[in-house]
């Protein structure tokens, strides 16, 4: 028994490390006096421990998939890959939180605690192998997120964001739980492995009932990754939250929710049949709508954070197309997209955060003439915007190429055209921002204080994968191909 547990734990080291980290951070935060030096040590500690989790994660990436804790959790290369993205995203956001003025000094280590907590929830969600674990992961992830979004306690926008997030989140979690209970009621099990055969045996009315409950379940997950029509909260929450929190939200909860949707779709609807077709149709329509709504709404935004929020909706709509095709190639495309998206999003939010910290607002206007204030950063930001739009030679292009190629392989030309039109719309608003930064006459060359040497180095380091994965992407492709193994 003990030996079995230890065997399980050997797969579960990353999560264990994170839990230990969170606890020690809590103790450390409570015991330090309010001085910045001590908090700096805490943050370095948090970053290095998170970096440490990458080692067991990397090890798990090459291991055979297993289910542990009586089928509650599955550790497979797929979930491990997602966890790597999430850990990197958390690290990036924690680093940003220490640079940002929006996270008050005395709250800096609290940010790290919350972020690690959300990360634990996200890891659980990515590995969830029964309905209960899904719910557990979803709630751990959500409840801490609500707190994070209202981190700027004395600003009404931030508290509003927290409240909106909590209300919408509570509702959608309730709907998801309602759906799950119906699934359990109709099929008598919460284990993913047992659900599939029972699902296939269903006929007639009860099939419709179960399908309806799956749709309700899907609402909960779709809300988390802000799919249309559950995306309404996203812009307000993204704009109201402090920028490091926004960058965190744009990566960690999204990847976790995406992983859960991928797993649910493949486990239950991966086999050919009527069920699969209707699920596929649902996701197809939702993804087309999500992309279009996200991109079209982004055009009119004057707040850059809000623009990035809508663009992230568009990107999720694109990623979710990898689910539609229901095969390994689709998963591979999603994983690659996730990794590319991680670096692009981090850079975009880093620069937005630093610029908006300097001017106290994040409208387009503060980006005007950025190229004269800091040429390197303006160029990198423009490159990232081009990458987000899917321009070669950046990684965003390869990500888009992969998604296009999986849908075209299935001969879904209609949706390919929708995605094509969407990437043109996307390009338009990215170009507008790039234009604001780079074109136009020199007005002032005041230095933006946030672009310290260290920050610029980090941003350049984050840019390396954006460019590298756009040119030499075969290694990551091979890696994500290997990571498509997961347990059905």
């Amino acid at each position, binding site marked *: 028994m003990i030996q079995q547990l230890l065997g399980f734990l050997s797969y579960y080291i990353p999560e264990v490390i994170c839990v230990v980290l969170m606890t020690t951070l809590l103790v450390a935060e409570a015991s330090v006096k309010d001085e910045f030096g001590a908090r700096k040590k805490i943050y370095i500690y948090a970053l290095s421990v998170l970096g440490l989790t990458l080692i067991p994660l990397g090890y798990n990436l090459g291991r055979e998939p297993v289910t542990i804790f009586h089928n509650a959790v599955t550790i497979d290369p797929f979930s491990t890959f997602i966890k790597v993205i999430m850990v990197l995203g958390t690290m990036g956001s924690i680093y940003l939180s220490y640079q940002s003025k929006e996270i008050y000094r005395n709250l800096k280590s609290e940010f790290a605690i919350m972020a690690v907590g959300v990360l634990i929830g996200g890891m659980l969600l990515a590995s969830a192998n029964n309905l209960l674990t899904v719910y557990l992961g979803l709630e751990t992830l959500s409840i801490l997120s609500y707190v994070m979004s209202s981190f700027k306690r004395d600003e009404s926008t931030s508290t509003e964001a927290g409240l909106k997030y909590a209300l919408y989140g509570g509702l959608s979690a309730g709907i998801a739980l309602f759906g799950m209970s119906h699934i359990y009621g109709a099929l008598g099990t919460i284990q993913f492995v047992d659900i599939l055969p029972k699902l296939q045996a269903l006929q007639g009315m009860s099939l419709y009932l179960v399908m309806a409950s799956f749709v309700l379940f899907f609402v909960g997950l779709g809300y988390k990754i802000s799919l249309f029509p559950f995306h309404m909260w996203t812009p307000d929450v993204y704009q109201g939250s402090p920028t490091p929190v926004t960058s965190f939200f744009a990566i960690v909860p999204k990847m976790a929710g995406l992983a859960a949707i991928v797993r649910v779709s493949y486990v239950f609807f991966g086999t050919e049949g009527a069920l699969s077709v209707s699920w596929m149709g649902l996701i197809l329509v939702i993804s087309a709508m999500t992309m279009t709504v996200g991109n079209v709404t982004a055009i009119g935004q004057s707040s850059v954070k809000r623009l990035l929020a809508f663009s992230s909706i568009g990107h999720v709509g694109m990623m979710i197309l990898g689910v539609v095709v229901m095969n390994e190639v689709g998963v591979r495309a999603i994983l690659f997209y996730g990794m590319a998206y991680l670096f692009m999003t981090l850079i975009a939010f880093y620069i937005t955060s630093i610029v908006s910290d300097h001017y106290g607002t994040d409208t387009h206007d503060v980006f005007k003439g950025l190229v004269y204030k800091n040429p390197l950063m303006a160029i990198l930001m423009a490159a990232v915007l*081009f990458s987000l739009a899917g*321009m*070669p*030679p950046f990684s965003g*292009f390869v990500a888009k*190429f992969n998604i*296009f*190629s999986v849908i*075209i*392989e299935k*001969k879904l*030309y*209609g949706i*390919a*055209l929708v995605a*094509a*039109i969407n*990437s*043109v719309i996307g*390009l*338009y608003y990215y*170009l*507008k921002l790039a*234009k604001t930064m*780079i*074109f*136009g006459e020199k007005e002032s060359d005041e230095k933006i204080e946030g672009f310290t040497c260290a920050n610029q180095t980090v941003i350049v380091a984050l840019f390396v994968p954006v460019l590298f994965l756009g040119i030499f*992407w*075969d290694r990551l*492709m*091979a890696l994500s*191909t290997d990571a498509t193994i997961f347990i059905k």
Partner: protein
Amino acid sequence: MNGILNWILWLPILGVLGVLATPSAKEGVIRVVTLVTTFITLVLSVVLYLHFDNAATGMQFVVKVPWIEQFHINYHLGIDGITMLMTFLNALLFFICTLSSWTVDKNVKAYFSLLLMLQSTVFGVFFALDFFLFYVYWEVMLLPMFFLIGIWGGENREYAAIKFFLYTFFGSIFMLVGIIALYYATGKGPDSFNILALQGGQFTQLTVDLFGQTVSFEHLFFWFMFLGFAIKVPVFPFHTWLPHAHVQAPTAVSVILAGVLLKMGTYGFLRIAFPIFPMAAVQSSTIIAVLGLISVIYGAFCAMAQDDVKKLVAYSSVSHMGFVMLGLAAMTVQGMNGAVLQMFNHGTSTAMMFLLIGILYERSHHRWIVKPDGSKGYGGLYTKLPKYTTVFIIGMFASLGLPGLSGFISEALIFLGIYQRFTTITVIAVVGLLIGAAYLLWMFKRMFFGEVNPETEEYDDMNAREIFYMIPLCLCVIVFGIFPSPLLNVMKVSVGQLVDLLAKF
């Protein structure tokens, strides 16, 4: 000699590194670095021409290195006769543009590094034999152009830059869908992205299901590719980005845009759309010819209506590229040869026109033939600027197709070719030539003859640098007008192969 394409392709990038390594205050050094880079590139392209085997079929100087093995994407370069001409044109025009950009003084470092980057990507488009690589270069080319127009352009440059970018991107995203569809249609094999292996009409039997309708694979994706290339050419009705981009772009960028970038569109037809989808191409040739004809006539009429001389030449490009489309649509030996020759000749003659307008603009800071308030912008330039007028006459007559100058031969070949297939269209297209002569001569009369405009009194004639960089273009226009065989011989085999292929369908 095998690696020479690599050298030509990457030398400008080396130049970019050299420019970036120079401190931005040393503007003279930056200019010289750029000039030396483009000059070596030009020399290499001449070396390439000397080693080029005119009689050989297929690609020469091939470089093929695996790039993304999972997708069978290769770094695959090679040239044939058509590309050879384009390579030379590209190398020549960039060398000249560097000289003509000598007076650029805003952000010199960024300007010249973007210019060199642009040159490299344009070479990439012409050399690429791997479809993925081709697409990457095709798209990357937009980035330097976007900044060149957007930063160094005229008053309305932001609008023009975004419009140019969005238009091309819109076309090319359809091309991307087509590229991926071809990849799966060939069964993801080792040659799925190999442009040469895709050629030959293997997809005639396939069908696709689009929104519930069964359509021919070949026709659908031919039109996808058509959209991508036609926007670049530009063919009516996709030409609306061109006047804006041209008018706003700085002189050198206009020259490159008209001289080489537009040719990438017609090159796309020659290398990709026609040989990969020959059946669809042959069946759609009437539509292409009609669109080409509309471009010829409509572009010419638009040019006639312009008061801005740069816009006039921009519209004349639409008209002249329409002739190329007519030659392509003819699908006969003469027509195709004429089209490729016209690509080269239009490259040199229109480059002359844009350079000359740029030279005049540096003196007058406006480009109005007739100013918006109704007064004359120029007038009597002929008496004040004799050297300028001489060069202008050569450029203009080459542009309108005067016998003895380069434009005549290519247009005559195009008409010979197209007459065999579309008689009516030929007859109407000839009218386009007439309108072309009319608007050019009318412009010339209004600018150079008549009373001397007092505003133009102070203008200096062309200086030594300006004369120096106009000489090679004048030579091209005159020599190839009398003696076009060096160009025709190079492309004969390549064009012949394409015509033979199309004749089977």
